[in-house]
């Protein structure tokens, strides 16, 4: 059991981070804390994807100019899969835009209600 936790520690960290972020998005009453939770949640997903591609002692999947003329890069077991990293580059772009939109909306809310506490906003809206 202990081995299972230690050998897959990156996945455990991903799950813990994701749950912290999820809690903050749902449970916290402050809008900026919710955004921070959202960012934690998304970052945890990046960690997950990058973990799936990680490999000890793997080489780069480049055939030309590679070590030994790319002899290692041809075997699937020997190289590190670059695709999850590339997917995460796109996902990072999406996450940054989400963060930007969320912050812009929070600024609009602050200008209108002069507070960032959800309870206070709900009280004013009644």
């Amino acid at each position: 059991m202990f081995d299972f936790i230690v050998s897959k520690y990156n996945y455990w960290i991903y799950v813990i981070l994701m749950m912290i972020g999820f809690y903050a998005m749902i449970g916290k009453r402050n809008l900026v804390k919710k955004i921070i939770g959202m960012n934690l949640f998304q970052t945890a997903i990046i960690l997950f994807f990058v973990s799936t591609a990680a490999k000890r002692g793997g080489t780069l999947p480049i055939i030309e100019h590679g070590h030994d003329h790319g002899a290692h890069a041809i075997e699937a077991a020997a190289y590190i899969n670059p695709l999850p990293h590339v997917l995460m580059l796109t996902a990072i772009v999406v996450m940054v835009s989400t963060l930007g939109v969320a912050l812009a909306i929070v600024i609009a809310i602050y200008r209108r209600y002069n507070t960032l506490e959800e309870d206070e906003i709900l009280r004013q809206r009644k």
Partner: protein
Amino acid sequence: MISQSPVLVVVIPLIFAFLTLLFGLWRKGLCYPITLVALSLSFLASLHTLNTVITSGTIHYYLGGWNPPWGIEYVVDHLSAFVLVIVSFIALLVAIYSKKSVEQELPEKIVYFYCLFLLQVTGFLGIVITGDMFNLYVFLEIASLAGYALIATGEDGAPFASFNYVIFGTIGACFYLLGVGYLYIVTGSLNIADLSQILPNLYHSKVVLVAFAFFLVGVSIKMALFPLHVWLPDAYTYAPSTVTALLAPLMTKVGAYVMIRIMFTVFEPYFSIELIPVTSILGWMAAGAIIFGAVMALAQTDLKRMLAYILVSEVGYITLGIGLANRNGLTGAILHILNDAFMMLALFLVVGAIMYRSGKREIPQLRYLHRKMPLTMAVFVIAALSVIGIPPTCGFFSKWYLILGAIDAGKWVFVAVLLISSLLNVILFFRVIESAYLEPVAEHSSGGSELAIAREESPLTMLIPILIAGAGIMSFGILSGKIISTIIQFAIPIGF
């Protein structure tokens, strides 16, 4: 050029979104015509694509010439061509409608509005046409981000409603992305066709089950399936009327499309129906949505908010068709994607026109509307009859197939739910029609002098889309047999 039509459907609105921004900063008045040109071209391209699909079958388009499963592939079969045409046509109608409403509601933001509008449509079209799971995530986020921004431009409560939508929408999108990740771990592929080849051997793997659960929850949030609908009523009530008219018919329908794709194309029907009992759970959630949406709508006095709750209940209808998981049920669900898109379009366009003329939308304030706006209100009544499900409007036919599907499945509870919801809809719409058409008794008896009420029909750019939507509701009802025999019977996933 013509053979490139699948990619043009998506690329044209995307490029024109940036052209709108450039030309708009130079001359504000150019935004509207540019948007119309872009959406007309995109609509023509999608019509051509549908025509090609009907005559010669599924189209595979390889972006940049990279073969799948390595490159991104666009796949247009009957189902996606059908939804493509619906999306591009409704987007075009809403764009025609937008002119006056945007000038009144968002006078300083016209340029950015049209830029976001086109990006939103790009997102919807991309979701429908793509054959790649990760590409679908990117388009889903393009559509959602444009939607958050558009909703936030609305009236007083809009930014707060939009913020809640951001939180929920991001949870949904992240769950979808996790689903993609889990599938990639076990299959090493992102291409939908490739996945459906590899997955059957892995159906008993726990990773695949987790991925499926993530997909379903994520998509359910995006399509506002009860009980994950909480973001929808606020967001669609406070958004500008044009934005609601674009988002309400399309976002939920595109979500339903993604759900059908994942359940029956990426996974086989055998997996979703027999291996894990997900369809029966969906059926019960849908029944809950139908009743809950209608009951909550009864409690509203704000017309737009009432329609938003009716939308929650309509999402339930489509999901019920998916949950029934037989041929009739799915025919009803796919037909309802078309019918409900037009019903919701007509209703929200009419509410926008009423708001434009009078600035009011509380149900008791609608008095004398049938004299002020006779044509607009006539379309409202047609759409209302269609939501209730009275023949020959199109709403009747999709409900008919859903009821047949429920009988085939032996689920009598669902038959009862469908009938009860029709009755609830009668009450709901009668309240509005009573307020708008019937005049107070007191004024009639005292003197009987007709109050002079000037006729204030909606402006022409609003009236034309409203009338087209009304005509659509009637003609899709009359032509529903033909639509089913030429398109929908081929759109039903293999295995039914």
